[in-house]
């Protein structure tokens, strides 16, 4: 693992980011009509604000110039003003982002810690009862739409059993341990919904990756060395099987953000996902663009992290 490799990966990430920004801008530019037309009919917005916006976005310039303006504004964090929330978009998003990241992070941790052992155990005894049960459950998790899992969990744990709150509240009237306890309690369902959907996919990835690795020659070599089966699996199979799985997890990230949007919407978690839906329903274009841009950046960033992790897991890569 060397610095050169990391720098190379970062340099590769930049064109992707540019490409994504072109696509986002393209969608915006191709949209029929004036994206700020809605504002004209909104009595709460004075016409001079609308004109200022038009001028800033330079709606009458040639396309490439508009793109450059738009992109430099995005990069500088100058994302406009949310008329719905009456504050700057960048501040609004920054306010909401941590909750989303915590929910996504916790659900990924949950998914990984469930899926890796299950996937490995299923693969070392393929077609066994355990494998069949695990694979069937993975398929169910993979096929359950997040919004339906969410509603079923609410139905069972909030309405029938009354164990967990189904609305996420940012303002909890408690201090100390009780405060954290309430937070954890209200986070359980969103995290589980998002985590289980991921775990299903991940079990399938892990299982097929282990199945691919376990028949390779070096695993036979490891067995011939007389090291115990457990150690063979952990040191020589799982370690190697994780390499492609890292990439697959990174490829899943856009889907994870999609799941987070739905989950936040169901449980009313005050993250950027529910903010996005609210903004769309309220025609708050700057917020919609800002959030889409932030999520794209996060996907590119996590892909970069996955690439670096990949290079760390596979010594062959960083030498190339």
């Amino acid at each position: 693992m060397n610095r050169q490799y990391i720098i190379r990966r970062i340099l590769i990430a930049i064109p992707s980011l540019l490409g994504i920004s072109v696509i986002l801008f393209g969608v915006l530019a191709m949209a029929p009509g004036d994206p700020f037309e809605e504002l004209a009919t909104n009595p709460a917005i004075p016409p001079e604000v609308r004109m200022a916006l038009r001028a800033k976005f330079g709606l009458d310039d040639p396309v490439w110039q508009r793109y450059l303006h738009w992109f430099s504004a995005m990069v500088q964090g100058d994302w406009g003003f949310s008329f719905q929330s009456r504050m700057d978009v960048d501040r609004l998003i920054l306010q909401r982002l941590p909750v989303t990241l915590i929910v996504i992070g916790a659900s990924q941790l949950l998914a990984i810690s469930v899926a890796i052992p299950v996937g490995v155990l299923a693969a070392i005894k393929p077609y066994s009862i355990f494998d069949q049960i695990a694979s069937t459950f993975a398929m169910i998790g993979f096929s359950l739409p997040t919004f339906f899992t969410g509603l079923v969990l609410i139905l069972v744990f909030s309405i029938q059993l009354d164990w967990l709150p189904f609305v996420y509240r940012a303002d909890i009237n408690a201090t100390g341990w009780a405060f954290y306890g309430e937070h954890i309690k209200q986070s359980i369902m969103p995290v589980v919904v998002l985590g289980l959907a991921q775990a299903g996919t991940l079990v399938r990835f892990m299982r097929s990756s282990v199945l691919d690795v376990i028949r390779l020659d070096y695993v036979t070599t490891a067995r011939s060395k007389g090291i115990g089966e457990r150690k063979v699996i952990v040191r020589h199979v799982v370690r190697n099987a994780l390499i492609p799985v890292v990439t697959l997890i990174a490829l899943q990230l856009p889907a994870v953000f999609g799941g987070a949007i739905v989950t936040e919407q169901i449980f009313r978690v005050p993250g950027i996902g529910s903010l996005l839906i609210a903004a769309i329903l309220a025609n708050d274009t700057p917020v919609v663009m800002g959030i889409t841009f932030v999520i794209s950046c996060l996907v590119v960033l996590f892909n970069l992290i996955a690439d670096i992790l990949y290079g760390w897991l596979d010594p062959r890569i960083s030498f190339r």
Partner: protein
Amino acid sequence: MADTLLDIRGLKTWFKVEDGMVRAVDGVDLHIDRGETVGVVGESGCGKTVTARSVLKLIDMPPGRFEAGQILWQGRDLIPLDQGEMNKIRAREIAIIFQEPMTSLNPVYTVGDQIAEVIALHQKLSPKQAMAGAAEMLRLVNIPNPQKRVHDYPHQFSGGMRQRVMIAMALSCQPKLLIADEPTTALDVTIQAQILELMHEMKDKFGMAIMLITHAMGVVAETCQRVTVMYAGKVVEEAPVEALFADPRHPYTQGLIRSIPRIDRAVSRQARLESIQGTVPSLLNPPAGCRFAARCKYAMDICTQGIPPLKEVAPGHRVACVL
């Protein structure tokens, strides 16, 4: 015999596939004495590799299974042993190297780690001592600059060098038997000779026996004392190397020997290089009777009726043929 190390008796290793049983090894007898080099030859798919892996119980079960037979290691049957007991024999008493040096080493660990792993395990050494042992083994197999090379990854070695690493790893616990499963097949011709030379040298140094699996009769002639010829999961002939080349009895062995290119014969135009017609029969539904019958130019009616047993035609020379 007191100095028999390995004695395989009537071994049957079968594989269950969707359409039935593949009889990859179907009644093999083979023995190896202390310090001896035994060649096991035959075409691809004749069961050589499965026999070799059966000895160390490196066959995936399922789909594989031992249908019958014994694998006696110094008089003790290995087949009923569990994983833990097998692991005390692997590497420490019987070691194995494989055909593909490019894929036999784990790409994510340094070669030093991989050799030290065996040493630390079987000789109960600290990681540091084991790493020193690994460097020493690399030096023994003539890898230049071993102190530095232990920290390199497999992809930084060439094919021949990786096979040296494999040999170093296999010999690091001074096993009594080294199983070499086509160790030179995947290598360049010049490298092949070097690896065979190295194995000779190591054998002199450590005094282990070698089970050399190959399909190259030339390699057998150069290195082995005794030869076992396998065909379609069965042993068809077994003899001391001189006897086999001087007086091959089984038509299949004769065909194998005739298919060796020889400079002294190639001069005359008529003597074209011979090949054996046809292909190995399906091991899924093997033909009744002698499995070579369909390709044998001497085949008679009785050949397709029963499987001829191995019978002794000269001291130490046994053939499974009615002729």
